[in-house]
């Protein structure tokens, strides 16, 4: 909302600096987003009259325009626009003039000398309207500086108006705030309107949709002359960002910005029997709006209609058929109050936001309807002539009652944390034009019709608080409780730190996913990951659903880094996936996943380069379990994408699969344009966190040293190492404390189809040291079991 200070000063005197005014507005809830002074960038532009327009000899799209500034010789300029005629007045940027985007010098355009330039309102920095030269009113004095003519030396505040305060979307509304802030009286000039008691208004109004239109008022003006508005009005409309059109239309816009109430002017001639019906649209009914678009109406759309044809979409935009044009003689001024919800839905349905709809959908003032119409009629009479009928058609069957709210002034103190005298609170509310009666620490408040946001006591407390100023509140701290992270939250943090300390970079990737992602991952329809929570209204085809895997996001990031020539990429993410359930809401499961690609260790002067491999991935999974204090998970071969068919394992905790780790299938990598072999893991954290033991008690430390013995065996190549370990553990109990596989060998020394496995065993007896003889016996027991169960031979 743009507020030129001179316009504001018509309603309230501003006896403070601009800086102070900005601070007061900021700190009372009307944030000033910008302070501009258009004149700073403009010099040397004056009013000129067009004498003659002749074609440019060398360019069809240019003309040569002779203009005069009132004294001296006519000047010739080259011009590209054609929206003006001889006799009209226009802004001339003379040679040496300065505009916001350029400086004007004498120059040749296609062989013709141009001594200056005619300006559009965009070139003057007034709007983004490049459509033609700004045609000035005929009463603009020749040679007058455009800055003073248009009041461009004014200061303009650009205000952010929050959606609860439509009453501030006007000069009057902002003036009311400023008047309360400065304790300066709100000035309202009386409306000088001469009505004609002889002239009867032919307008008849019928409201068939009173829920959408509680009040409709029409005034009749006969015999107007449509022409450009006076310079000052043109300038004010430009300064708030509105394109001037004609005196009649400009007046309705002027009143909209001045009083905040949207009006509409109809050409009375387009309503043959002067009958206005406010109704809902019929099915498949259409209207062509002022912007030239034909619109198919919805049965919930509220219309202003003649007997048959619609004239306007109520409170949003007029129809082109009933538009006021150059030949309009008689005008019907509409001033109505439309229901916010109805306007909001219509505006959104048609993607049509106008100054009018923005105010109606937030809540206009039903009581200003007559004042606004009178103000418009008075201005129209002054600038377009004509007679205004004294008779007013005002249909307002059920006047909206004013809200009454009780405010306990002590309660205001409790909420705000500071005590404020009842008198002071009453004064704040009165300054905002509320009716206040005071008794026993209680204020009875009558809420004015323009403040739809004030519904209950707390709303008044806010008004008191913001006028007292939040800076006057004490800064205190509430007692608080025992603040701490819960166990799982702390574990989640340490897990992120662990993976980062192990060399992985934490990634944050998007929560969405697509079928294409599933397909590239090789997820088949029967896999749980194929069932996605789908969006009804995705932003794009690439993101139609919630993700069921973290891998697509990580793979995208790996590919990006590979393109940036990162040497090795190791990323992890700890985030949610979304699994549909039979309930209304899906299950949001916490997952930790990683993708590691390229060299794990770069070649250095000490050691050679080594790429990430399966056992690095497996090791990360093992260390995660170990860090969580969980027993070693089991790993079993797993087939199927996204993994390499023979280099991947399912990860299980106590026979429940919680994830997988493996080398990614080359086809999957190709799907994301990743060139280097990559390792991935994905683990569901929920079951792991649920499996965590309560606080552990320590075990007594063994008091005697253990015996360390190595055993090397030769077995068939396809015997899994894990099977041998299990036999050793079973046979070695109870003396066996630890088993470590430290060597695997295949080759000449053991013969074809065989491999050797070497284990380090740690043996221990309870409460005594284990004699060598007993240790040997345990070892023999283990070897015998290996031989019997796996056909193992002891290796020499």
């Amino acid at each position, binding site marked *: 909302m743009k507020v030129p200070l001179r316009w504001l000063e018509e309603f309230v005197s501003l006896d403070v600096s601009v800086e102070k005014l900005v601070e007061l507005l900021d700190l009372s*809830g009307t944030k000033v987003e910008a302070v501009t002074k258009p004149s700073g960038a403009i010099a040397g532009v004056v009013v000129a009259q067009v004498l003659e327009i002749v074609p440019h000899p060398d360019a069809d799209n240019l003309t040569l325009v002779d203009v005069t500034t009132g004294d001296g010789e006519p000047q010739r300029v080259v011009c590209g626009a054609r929206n003006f005629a001889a006799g009209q007045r226009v802004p001339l940027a003379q040679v040496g003039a300065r505009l916001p985007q350029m400086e004007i010098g004498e120059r040749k355009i296609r062989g013709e000398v141009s001594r200056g330039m005619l300006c559009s309102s965009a070139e003057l920095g007034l709007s983004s309207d490049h459509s033609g030269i700004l045609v000035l009113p005929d009463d603009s004095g020749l040679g007058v500086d455009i800055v003073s003519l248009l009041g461009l030396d004014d200061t303009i505040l650009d205000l952010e108006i929050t959606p609860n305060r439509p009453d501030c979307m006007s000069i009057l509304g902002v003036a009311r705030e400023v008047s309360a802030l400065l304790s300066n009286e709100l000035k309202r000039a009386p409306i000088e309107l001469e009505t004609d008691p002889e002239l009867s208004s032919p307008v008849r109004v019928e409201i068939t949709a009173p829920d959408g239109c509680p009040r409709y008022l029409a005034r009749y003006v006969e015999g107007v002359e449509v022409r450009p508005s006076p310079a000052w009005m043109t300038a004010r409309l430009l300064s708030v960002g509105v394109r001037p059109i004609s005196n009649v239309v400009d007046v309705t816009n002027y009143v909209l910005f001045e009083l905040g109430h949207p009006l509409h002017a109809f050409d009375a001639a387009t309503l043959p029997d002067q009958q206005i019906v406010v109704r809902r649209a019929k099915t498949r009914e259409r209207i062509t709006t002022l912007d030239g678009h034909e619109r198919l109406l919805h049965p919930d759309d509220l219309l202003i209609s003649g007997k048959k044809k619609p004239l306007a979409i109520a409170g949003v935009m007029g129809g082109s058929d009933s538009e006021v044009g150059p030949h309009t003689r008689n005008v019907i001024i509409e001033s109505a109050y439309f229901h*916010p*919800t109805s306007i*909001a839905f219509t505006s959104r349905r048609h993607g049509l936001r106008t100054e009018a709809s923005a105010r109606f959908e937030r809540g206009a003032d039903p009581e200003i309807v007559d004042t606004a119409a009178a103000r418009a009629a008075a201005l129209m009479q002054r600038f377009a002539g004509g007679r205004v009928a004294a008779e007013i058609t005002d249909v307002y069957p059920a006047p909206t009652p004013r809200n009454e709210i009780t405010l306990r002034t002590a309660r205001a103190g409790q*909420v*705000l*944390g*500071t005590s404020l005298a009842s008198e002071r609170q009453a004064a704040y509310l009165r300054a905002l034009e509320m009716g206040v009666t005071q008794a026993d620490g209680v204020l009875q408040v009558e809420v004015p019709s323009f403040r739809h946001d004030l519904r*209950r006591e*707390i*709303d008044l407390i*806010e008004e008191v*608080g*913001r006028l007292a100023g*939040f*800076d006057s*509140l*004490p*800064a*205190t*701290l*509430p*007692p*608080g*409780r*025992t*603040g*701490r*992270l*819960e166990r799982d939250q702390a574990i989640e943090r340490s897990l*992120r730190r662990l*993976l*980062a*300390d192990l*060399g992985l*970079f*934490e*990634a*944050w990737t*998007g*929560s969405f996913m697509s079928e294409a992602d599933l397909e590239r991952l090789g997820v088949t329809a029967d896999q749980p990951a194929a069932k996605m929570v*789908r*969006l*009804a*209204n995705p*932003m794009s085809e690439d*993101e139609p659903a*919630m993700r069921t895997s973290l891998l697509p996001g990580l793979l995208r*990031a790996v590919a990006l*880094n590979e393109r*940036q020539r*990162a040497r090795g*990429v*190791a990323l992890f993410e700890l985030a949610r996936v979304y699994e549909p359930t039979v309930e*209304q*809401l899906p299950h*949001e499961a916490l997952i930790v996943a990683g993708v590691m690609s390229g060299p794990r*260790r770069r070649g250095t*002067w*000490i050691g050679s380069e080594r790429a990430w491999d399966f056992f690095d991935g497996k090791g990360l999974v093992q260390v995660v379990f170990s860090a969580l204090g969980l027993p070693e998970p089991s790993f079993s071969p797993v087939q199927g994408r996204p993994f390499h068919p023979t280099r991947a394992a399912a990860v299980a905790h106590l026979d429940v699969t919680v994830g997988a780790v493996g080398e990614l299938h080359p086809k999957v990598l190709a799907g994301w344009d990743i060139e280097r072999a990559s390792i991935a893991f994905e683990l569901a954290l929920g079951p792991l966190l649920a499996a965590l033991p309560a606080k552990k008690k320590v075990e007594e430390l063994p008091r005697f040293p253990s015996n360390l013995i190595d055993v090397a065996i030769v077995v068939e190549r396809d015997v899994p190492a894990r099977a041998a370990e299990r036999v050793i553990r079973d046979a070695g109990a109870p003396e066996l404390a630890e088993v470590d596989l430290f060597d695997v060998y295949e080759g000449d020394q053991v013969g074809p189809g065989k491999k050797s496995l070497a284990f380090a065993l740690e043996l221990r007896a309870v409460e005594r040291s284990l004699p060598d003889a007993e240790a040997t016996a345990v070892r023999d027991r283990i070897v015998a079991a290996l031989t019997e169960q796996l056909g193992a031979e002891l290796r020499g």
Partner: protein
Amino acid sequence: MSDLRTRLEEARAEGLAKIETAGDLASLDEARVRTLGRKAQLSQVRSGLGKVDEDERKEIGKLANDVQQQLEEALRAKRELFEAAELEQRWERERVDVTLPGRVPPLGTIHPLTKTIWEIVDIFIGLGYVMAEGPEVELSLYNFDAINTPADHPARSAQDTFYIEGTDEAVCLRTQTSPMQMRIMERQSPPVYVVVPGRVYRRDELDATHLSSFSQLEGLAVDEGITMGDLKGSLSAFARSVFGNDLEVRLRPHYFPFTEPSAEMDVECFVCRGSGVSCRLCKGEGWIEVLGCGMVHPALFEWVGYDPERYSGFAFGMGIERIAALAHGVSDIRHFYDNDLRFLTQFRGSA
């Protein structure tokens, strides 16, 4: 008797000479055997002492001790010399070029958004809050109705909010972390001191300051006698802790449907310190908006069955990407989701 004395003096002189001429540790060892060993002159003199009369034995014995001490001292000195020299050689053999690269264990990073959340959560834990998390796929009931959003509020439209297919707009992707206020109050009675970080979703077109999926942190404090002054004190403490203890902080009235009174909190621009002129960060305003807040609207208490006459509270919400971007000077928040290692590596240490 003088014979014994002479022999001892000879032993001294010979011994010292041998020690002196020893060229390495081995010959020094040999010298030790020759001068102090059982067969050495000194030992032989000592073993012959029994035949000497008592007065003289004392005197000769003293001399023998003196000779032995002197020889031992000479041996020790010589040995130290050799050992020092040997060590010197060893150090030279073992010298490394300390400017060669070290064997660096791989080191990743915690993502800047995670770090930002941790930092903020920790500040509030210090003020006595706990942390909670809630569903991202949320009932529209909680995301809108429960927190006082009018039925015709534009944010509800399918243009602004993601809805889940087949739910007739009953289930959405939460557009804010605020619905967790209601879930928390529904399941526990006051006092409540909680912060809720999490992802939220809005159908915003992507640009340098907008993402369709981003993160917020919500806070809620409900207790008997909580005032707007408590809000001001708590959030000022937070903002100064994140952005700088010497910065001015202000509360500016604003509007949110779920708080009343509502405010935005500004921190003095830490680039221009409020001087404003041509500052790119604050665009000349001198202030930077960091969060939205307000006193919990009584309608929310009524929804969950808290007595609004007995309890009061405040709530606040902030954008994690925005806070992280401000704190680290990140000009485009899309960087946070690209996971470019050249970006992430910069967040090592306390950065």
